Structures are given as C-alpha cells and as structure tokens.
C-alpha cells in the first residue's frame, strides 16, 4: 500500500506569492496513496529537511513528493534526506511548482490549479517507483590528462602526487602551453617561465607520469572507470631515448626560415627544432613539411652531426593503447585570428583593423613574445615591419569579444588585465613611449587586479580611452588609428607605430572533435560544457570525464590552476574507492519478451546494448536477446522508444510511471 508524503515548499514567497500553498495542501491530501501533506517555508533548509525526515519516520512513508523548485536544483538534496531516514532515494520525486509555475504564472487561481496537477502527476509517478540501488563497476586507478599547458600540468602533478599513475598527452613537441610563451604575469609581474618551467621539469621527471608529447588522442572507448584510450604518437624523426638534446642537429640545420609556432610567427626556427630552450622533453622534432630530407630526400645534415645516432628519417606514427579510469581535459585556448579569412560565414573577420595586412598590427600573444626575454628579439621591443622601437603603441580590447555582429558574444575576461600589463611592460622597456588603450569596460575583478590597472594608468602613464576603434589604416609607416573617447564624446585619432589587438579567446583547434570522442557537450563557441555552472564546475555530463582551464571558458592562470586542482581532486575522490557507483536510472531488457530484432542495438547512442544468447544447461540455444551493459548505459531511453515489443525499459522513467503521469491528467 502506498504511503506517500507530499511536502509543499513556500520557498519564502517565491512560491506562496502566486500559489495558494495551503489550499494546495488540502487538495493534495486527498490524492490516492497520499498519507500526509504539509507545507513549510523553506523545505530545503535544515528544519525543512528535518520535518521531512520526521514524517518519513512517523508515517512510515514508502514514497514522497517534494513540491518546490526544479529537480535540477534540489532533487539530490531531498533524495539524500530521504536516504538518511532509510527511505530509498529513488522513491522521491519532485513537482516543479516554482520555475514551471509560480515564477511564470501570476494568476493565483490558475497557478494553484497547475501546481495541483503537477503534484498529482508526481504522486502518480512515485506510486510506481521502485527502490533502486546504485550500480557498481570496477575501476582502473589511472588518469589521462589531455593537454600539457599550465592546467594540464597542475592536474597531472596533483593526481600523480596523490600516488596515482597519470598519462599526459600533449600535441605540441613540448609541454608548457601558452603560459610558457608569456613574458611576465599579472598582477605580480613575475616571470612566467620562472614559475612554470620548474613545474614542467617536475612533470618530466615524475615517476607516476607517463608523458606523450607530439601526440594526439585518437580514440576513446569504454566508460567511467574503464576507458581504453588510443594515443597517436606522431613521427618525431628523433629517437628521444638516444637523443641527448645537445643541439648539434638544429645548429646544423640549413633551413632556418620556418615561422616559429612558439613565437606566433614573430621569430623563425629551423626544420629540426625544440620549440624553446626550456622545453620538456628538451628533445627536438623534425618538421616533416620543412625538412628537405623528408620532402625531397636531400640534406641529412642533422643525422650526420648527431653523435648519438638519434635521427631516424624513417620514423612512423605509432598507436598506443592506455587503460585509464578517469580523463581530465585541459586543451586550453587560442587567440582568434581575426584576419580576412574566416572558417565560417557567421564570423566576418575584422577587415577594418588590417590584421594580416599591416605587419605592425599584431595580437596580444605576439606582443608577449616581442617583450619576452626569451623571445625572438631577446626582450627588446621592436616592431615587425622594420625593427624600429615603437614610440606610440595602441592596445585595443574586445576585438572579436562582446561582438554579436561578427565575433563572439562573450567577454574574453583576461584581456583587460593583460592590456594593463602590456602597457606597463612597454613603458618599462620604452621609457619615452606612450601606450594607449581603447576599452569598453575595465573588468578587473580579482585579488589586486584593479589596483594593478590603476597602477598602469597612474604610475606608468597609460592613456586609456573609453571607446572602440573603428578603423586602422597605414600611411607613411604610421598606423592611423581612428577611435573614440566616449567619455569626452569625441573621436580620437592616434598615429601609432604598433597596434596590439586583444582578440577573443577561443577554444583550441580540434576541441569539438575531441569532445565528440569523449561524449562531452560543448557550447556554440566550442567551449566544453561543465555539468553544472555553479555546483559541478569541473565535471562533465560524460561520467569520469573532467574539464579544467580555458577549454571550458576564458580564464586566467590562477583560475586555470585552481580548476585543474579541483579536477584532480575529483579524480582522487573517484580513485579513493575500489569501485564506481553509478546512477541506477538506466535501461534494461526483458529478455524473456525480447523478440531479438536488435533495433535497439542499432539505435543505442552508447553501443551499450549487445546481442546475447540464452542457452540451457546443456548449452542448447533457447533464444536470442538484446542485453544492456550497465557500465555503458547512460539512461537516455532511446531503446525504449524503438522497441516494438516494449521489452526495453528505463528505470526512473518506466512505461508504468510515464503512463501513470499522463493518465493522472485525464
């Protein structure tokens, strides 16, 4: 016999303002199966939960409905409360009378009537609920970290330090990511490399970290706790087990004209190269497109100079399989290339800024290299066109960010801070120079951030103009920047020697393909989606896959590092158990009734249903059937809808439950 408790929340006035909760309680008390019905001001608060627990105990409830907010908000809360009192959590349902009712319907009568219906549906459902217990699956206590920038490094070290093995995959020849190329960092102006490279070395030497550089994640199979990852180790043409990193090869290489990726084209490198001196591993790779030995079969100088015999022109890509239980994605960002050529029509580029046309219009990462002590100019600021020291520099914020017409509608978040930093670095290098910044708002929320921006203005004399730049043209070696100062209400024209564009921060290339391999969602810009923006910021909707750093959204170094540690913490929580428990709201097949048409096998998005045979003790085939692998099933229920004999069933949303809900409206 059903003994169901209905708990109606006022949510302060959020619900009670437009829903007559007392009248509602009277009505609901008479619903079939309902044992008790009461209201409370804040059902999710501790006294509210205690009230629920008390009633569960007193009335020996075997099901309950909380009528309050969205289940996305508090279903877990109330299930936990029930569980604490010995009521199976899956016997708890919610009626969403706030988001779906009191907040959107202001006619009290209609809203109350709707709330009653919503509760009636929930009661009808919960009467057909089953007690469920979490599914247990075994666990491989090894983690994969994808991306070796500062976030990936932090996550890998944290997990490795906790005693678990880590597989770190980085597609560039060295780990370090964007941070390795930065000059100094805000708001302390400490040297980026000085703080990062020791961490890189730690990764390289850590006994628990297996590092694959110049490698990509090719395929991911399996499920939480039991992933099987195929890694493509791209041909490096250098055997790093033999190589000593002496540098004879790259010094000998006659082709030194390839634009350096690490310098964002501001400097050149040889065909065999290490991206930067502090690289980890400090071993070169050969750029197969630039090396004449590989393209034309001529040269081979590096091999001749290599005393260790480490050069191997016949090197091939290699596929390696690694078993891991958890995956951390830390693939980072890129700056939007805002030149004329754009990947899709929605993005129009910024023809008016002449990026890619005028040599002295560069982006912020290029500027970082130009002022970095390890950069192509040795830290002396010289502009690309003629090597002159720029006396007037214009920094432009929000290039492609906060731009609904032809860019990204979001704020890239870090540009305000690094623009301020750039004006300081510039002033420190060119004492008689003048920096101008065009900005729309200064977003400097963070510890010591606003003080930092003020310092740029007050101490280092950066001229800030509140407004956007409309067009840049080049006349006689000067860049004519036409902007506006909206505070003065006047157009401003500056003749600049160098223009630095803070272009929008976008997820790194290829992240969408990776996300599809991992079954992780992403937004319209390609940023990976976290499970919950507030409460589950590093988890994703793919169980066992976590995100951190700028692949999830624009962020600065401290935030990326914090998030990386959070992701690592989540992995350790997972690894602290011997088994994984998973939500039991998954599909199952009634194998006696299954007609074995296997439509569900085709339709399952997770390949979680397999063909199986039922045999008797003598091994004779009795019948064939479809069978769900509970480790793989994510509970979408597509199988239920396609099964003609309705042998597939989805716990939590069973046919009985759903029909009961619809019928309760009749």
């Amino acid at each position: 016999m059903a003994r169901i408790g209905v708990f109606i929340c006022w949510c302060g006035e959020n619900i009670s303002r437009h829903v007559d909760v007392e009248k509602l309680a009277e009505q609901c008390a008479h619903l079939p199966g309902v044992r008790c019905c009461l209201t409370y001001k804040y059902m999710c608060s501790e006294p509210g939960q205690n009230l629920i627990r008390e009633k569960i105990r007193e009335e020996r409830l075997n099901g309950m409905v909380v009528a309050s907010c969205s289940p996305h908000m508090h279903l877990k809360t109330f299930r936990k409360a029930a569980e604490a009192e010995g009521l199976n959590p899956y016997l708890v349902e919610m009626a969403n009378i706030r988001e779906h009712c009191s907040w959107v319907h202001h006619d009290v009568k209609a809203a109350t009537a709707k709330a009653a219906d919503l509760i009636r549906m929930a009661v009808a459902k919960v009467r057909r609920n089953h007690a469920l217990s979490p599914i247990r699956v075994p666990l491989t206590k090894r983690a994969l970290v994808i991306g070796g920038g500062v976030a990936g490094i932090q996550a890998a070290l944290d997990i490795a330090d906790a005693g678990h093995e880590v597989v770190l995959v980085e597609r560039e020849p060295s780990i370090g990511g964007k941070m390795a190329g930065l000059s100094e960092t805000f708001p302390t102006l400490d040297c980026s490399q000085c703080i990062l490279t020791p961490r890189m070395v730690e990764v390289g030497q850590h006994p628990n970290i297996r590092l694959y550089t110049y490698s990509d994640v090719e395929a991911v199979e399996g499920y939480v706790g039991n992933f099987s990852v195929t890694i493509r180790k791209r041909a490096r043409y250098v055997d790093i087990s033999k190589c000593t990193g002496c540098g004879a090869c790259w010094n000998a290489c006659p082709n030194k004209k390839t634009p350096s990726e690490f310098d964002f084209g501001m400097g050149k490198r040889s065909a065999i190269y290490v991206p930067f001196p502090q690289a980890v591993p400090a071993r070169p790779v050969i750029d197969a497109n630039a090396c004449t030995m590989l393209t034309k079969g001529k040269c081979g100088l590096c091999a001749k100079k290599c005393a260790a015999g480490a050069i191997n022109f016949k090197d091939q890509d290699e596929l390696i399989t690694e078993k891991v239980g958890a995956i951390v994605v830390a693939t980072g960002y890129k700056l939007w290339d805002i030149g004329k050529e754009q990947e899709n029509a929605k993005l129009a580029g910024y023809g008016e800024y002449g990026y890619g046309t005028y040599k002295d219009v560069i982006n912020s990462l290029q500027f970082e290299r130009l002022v970095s002590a390890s950069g192509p100019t040795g830290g002396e600021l010289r502009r690309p066109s003629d090597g002159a020291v720029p006396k007037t520099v214009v920094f432009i914020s929000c290039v492609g960010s906060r731009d609904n017409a032809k860019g990204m509608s979001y704020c890239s978040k870090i540009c305000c801070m690094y623009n301020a930093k750039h004006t300081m670095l510039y002033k420190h290098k060119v004492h008689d120079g003048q920096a101008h910044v065009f900005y729309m708002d200064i977003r400097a929320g963070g510890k010591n951030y606003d003080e930092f921006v003020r310092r740029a203005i007050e101490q280092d004399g950066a001229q800030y103009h509140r407004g956007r730049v409309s067009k840049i043209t080049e006349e006689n070696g000067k860049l004519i920047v036409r902007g506006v100062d909206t505070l003065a209400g006047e157009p401003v024209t500056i003749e600049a020697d160098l223009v630095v564009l803070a272009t929008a921060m976008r997820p790194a290339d290829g992240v969408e393909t990776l996300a599809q391999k991992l079954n992780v969602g992403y937004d319209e810009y390609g940023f990976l989606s976290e499970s919950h923006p507030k409460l589950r910021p590093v988890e994703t909707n793919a169980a066992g896959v976590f995100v951190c750093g700028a692949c999830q959204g624009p962020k600065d170094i401290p935030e990326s590092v914090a998030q990386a540690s959070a992701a690592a913490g989540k992995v350790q929580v997972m690894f602290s158990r011997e088994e994984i428990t998973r939500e039991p709201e998954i599909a199952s097949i009634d194998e006696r009734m299954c007609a074995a048409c296997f439509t569900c096998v085709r339709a399952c998005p997770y390949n979680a249903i397999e063909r199986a045979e039922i045999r008797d003790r003598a091994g004779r085939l009795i019948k064939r059937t479809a069978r769900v692998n509970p480790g793989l099933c994510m509970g979408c229920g597509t199988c239920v809808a396609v099964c003609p004999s309705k042998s597939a069933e989805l716990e939590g949303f069973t046919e009985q439950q759903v029909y009961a809900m619809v019928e309760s409206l009749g």
Partner: protein
Amino acid sequence: MNIGYYPGCALHGSSNDYEQSVRACLGALGVNLCELDDWICCGATAAHSLNHKLAVALPARSLAIAERDGYDDLLAPCPMCSAQLIKARTALARDRALREEIAATVELPLEGRTEVLNLIQIFQRIGLERLKSRATRSLNEFKPACYYGCLLVRPPQALRFDDCEHPTSMETLLSELGAAPVEWNFKTECCGAGLTMCNERTVLDLSHKIISNAAAHGANCIVVACPMCHVNLDMKQADIERHYGIRHAMKVYYLSDLVGMALGLHENELGVNRHFVSTP
C-alpha cells in the same frame, strides 16, 4: 544579353555622361539595356531621411514593374538607387505582412524576386575572361585609385557585395585590363554624397581628403561607379581646389569609361569630354 535597366534620376539628369558611358561600354560588349517602363525615382536620401515608409514604397514600385515585365536582373548603375532597391527588396522578402501592405500601396503585386545589380556586378557577370578577350587596348598608362564610396558596399548585411572594408572587385577588373591600381586608404570613405547642395563644406572637406590620399599613394586618376561620387570629386574639384588653395587636377573616370577605353572606344564616345576635370 538582355538586361533590365534602371537608370535613376541622376543618369537621366546631370549625370547623363555616366549613362552615355555605361550604354557605350555595355553596348560594345553586346549587352542590351532594356530600360524599365515608367520607372519612378527611388526616393534617395530624402525619402529615407524624412519618411521611412516612402523609402520602401518608392523603390518597391519599380521593383514591382520589373517583376511584372519579367526581368530577373536589374542593373542600377547608381549605387544610391541600387542600395535603395536592394534594401527594399530585402525588407520585402523578409516580411510577408509588409509585402502585402506595400503591394497595396504601389498598386502592383510584388514578391521581391528581381535581383538588383550594380555596374561592377554586370562586368563580373560578363566575366573577366570575356572582357579581356574583347579588349583591344591596354590600360597601362592608368594608375587608378578605385573609389567605392559608401553605398556600393554598405551596409554589408543588406548589400552582400565584396569586402566592405577592403573591397577589391574594381581593382581585379582593371588590373586584368592592364591598369595598375594603387593601394590607398580612402576606398570606402564617404565623399559627402547627397549633402552637395545643402552642406557644401562637409562635401568639400571629405572629397578633398579622398583626392589627396589617392594622389599621395601615386594614383593618376580616380575611378568611381557612382554619379554622386563623380559630382563631388569631379564637378566640385574646382571648388575644392579654390577652398584649400591647392591644385589637384585629378581626373575622375567612371568605371565604364576605363573599361570602354580598353574595348577600344574613344573618350568622346564615352562622354569623358564632358567631365569637368580635363587633361591639362
């Protein structure tokens, strides 16, 4: 090749040299311009400044005539006209209620089918290869500054023609015919357009900047595809010179002038002799 032709008031008025040029040039290419029967003025700046409903209705009437007479394409050599026609067409195509309302206003059924083309697009339709094969004279003594002004490329959302910041279609066309267009910075800056009559100082100022920049970048002439640009840069050039005390003597050609010359037509056939700035 038959094509609908919407001359607009300017080409039938003080910019009839432009019409002469367009007709001569396209005639030499075998394009037959069929003037739209009883077309009416697009309303130009005046309409969209003073009465936004009129700014749709006036061009819509001509569009409806073009549809009625079965023209798929309509050449409007004046960018003011073509922009007004295109904007009306886009607005009509988007909004059924507006379409019905305007059809009732202009007393003709209307769907917004006819495509409106500017002069450059006609040459693109003809094809660079064909143009080149018809050319009898190289334009190699010309170093034009190709001037697009505003309404050939703006607003890009409506016009969808070339890159609105760095258009290159005229340059591509003319360099194929042997000319050496210069790179310069005022391709799409405004010359003052319709303010010629009532706000002359603005026009002189803007036009002066344009001519100066073209000269500074080594141009020996300016090429336009707009009657108003021609008025401001050519007819007003003497005033500009007087006002700024500087001698420009910058010849201003219509695009069809130069293409016509490449096809072997004489300057006088194209009406170049009727321009104000003449060869010194």
